[in-house]
């Protein structure tokens, strides 16, 4: 049986006796051409896959513009009872882009503290998007509870979880007053102590480790 090692070709082009070879050169013309062809092929594939992929992933990194929707004069809202308002959250898609919020004036007796925390809290706007999986909740005035029809989530008057599967209180919207009229702006989420967080999707808890498991997104609109 012949020694296999005898069949091994020398490593360098010089040892193989290839003409015009430099000392220590290992890349033969054939290897160079094969490598170039592979590189050119990979480049051609990248040339159409990378832009297409970026195109599809683009919306994940696109920051939304804050829009402020007029929902009525300041006299329409009081500190004790919620008033449902229907406004456009996503323009351009008709009724699908509309959503409902429950709005009342800031009430020191239930909201805590004498003054609103900042200019965005003079009116409290509670989103009807359930914090469990996003079904629309409704406010039952007699029970002073928000109730979700899908899986039985119940929230108290501040939107804090009373029972059922929701993992955090109901989201809220920034509000502001312009020329005597209340406007509703971007959404934000709150944890069980009603501290503000950038908007999270339903089903994502914000207490404890939750805020790190579900990080803020690039699409968040700033007021």
């Amino acid at each position, binding site marked *: 049986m012949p020694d296999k090692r005898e069949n091994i070709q020398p490593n360098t082009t010089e040892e193989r006796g290839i003409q015009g070879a430099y000392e220590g050169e290992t890349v033969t013309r054939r290897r160079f051409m094969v490598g170039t062809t592979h590189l050119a092929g990979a480049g051609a594939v990248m040339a159409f896959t990378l832009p297409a992929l970026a195109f599809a992933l683009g919306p994940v990194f696109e920051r*939304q513009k804050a829009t402020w929707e007029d929902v009525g004069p300041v006299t329409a809202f009081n500190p004790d009872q919620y008033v449902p308002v229907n406004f456009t959250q996503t323009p351009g898609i008709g009724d699908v882009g509309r959503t409902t919020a429950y709005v009342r004036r800031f009430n020191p007796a239930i909201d805590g503290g004498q003054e609103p925390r900042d200019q965005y809290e003079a009116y409290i706007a509670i989103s009807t998007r359930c914090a469990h999986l996003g079904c629309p909740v409704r406010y039952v005035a007699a029970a002073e509870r928000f109730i979700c029809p899908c899986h039985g989530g119940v929230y108290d008057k501040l939107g804090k979880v009373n029972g059922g599967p929701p993992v955090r209180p109901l989201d809220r919207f920034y509000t502001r007053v312009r020329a005597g009229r209340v406007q509703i702006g971007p959404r934000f989420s709150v944890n069980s102590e009603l501290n503000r967080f950038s908007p999270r999707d339903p089903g994502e808890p914000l207490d404890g480790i939750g805020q790190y498991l579900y990080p803020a997104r690039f699409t968040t609109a700033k007021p």
Partner: protein
Amino acid sequence: MPRIRLPSKLPSPPPGAVPKALRPSPSRPQEGNGRKSLRDRAIEDGAEAGTTVVDWVDERTSLSGAVRWTLFRKVPRGTNWFYTLGSATLFAFLNQAVTGVFLAMYYDPSPTRAYESIRFITNEAFLGEFVRGMHKWGSSVMVILIFLHMARVFFFGAYKYPRELNWVIGVVLLILTMTMAFTGYLLPFDQRSYWATIVGVNINGTGAFIGPYLSDFLRAGPDFGATTLSRFYAIHMLLIPGAIAALIGAHLYLVAKLGTTAPPWLKVESEPELREREV
């Protein structure tokens, strides 16, 4: 049939002027001594047309070997009706593909027009209700069949060596089928499909770390927006069907390559001489 009569006496060409192929040659033995009429030859050629065409293609592709390799396989004793569940799933997929293509001729994936186009398909297009029904109920049939097929493979132990890779491909096909069912559910764009999709996307979002971004990707933004529906439509009719078709090809290749398993209740029979020695 009118015939053109040529003058019986034509001046013959000088010898050597006519190429060899055009010179009259004695008839071949199987053709008999006389020349066949045009009609007989046409009938003969017609009868052999199928063979001729197949031969023509086969000579240039060698497909017949591949077809024999795929279709005329040996199957183990005890093969039974449970072994047809995979083919049944395949036919359910083909039904979805064909009806889906024709539904796409009427469907309009814009948030303001989608519901109306579905209403048109159901109420006004000829056979629209029937074809849409085939697609709608066919999707449930496909999901049921793929699970039955999976159960057959599991309980028959057909996922074991050397078929593990085919099990993995099958699991990917199962996931893709569920994704098809999920993305297709939104397309009628009525209250039920809209809220079911909201809930479904939010379930996606509960995956830690990647979930929130996955939701943004599915919706093309933080909320259900103008392009969400067309995004679902493109995923539903272009992206996933291509992947499913390719993976079904790989799945079937491995089935043909590795063969099917015998049912687990079939005892292995040893060679006769070995049996004698055992006694």
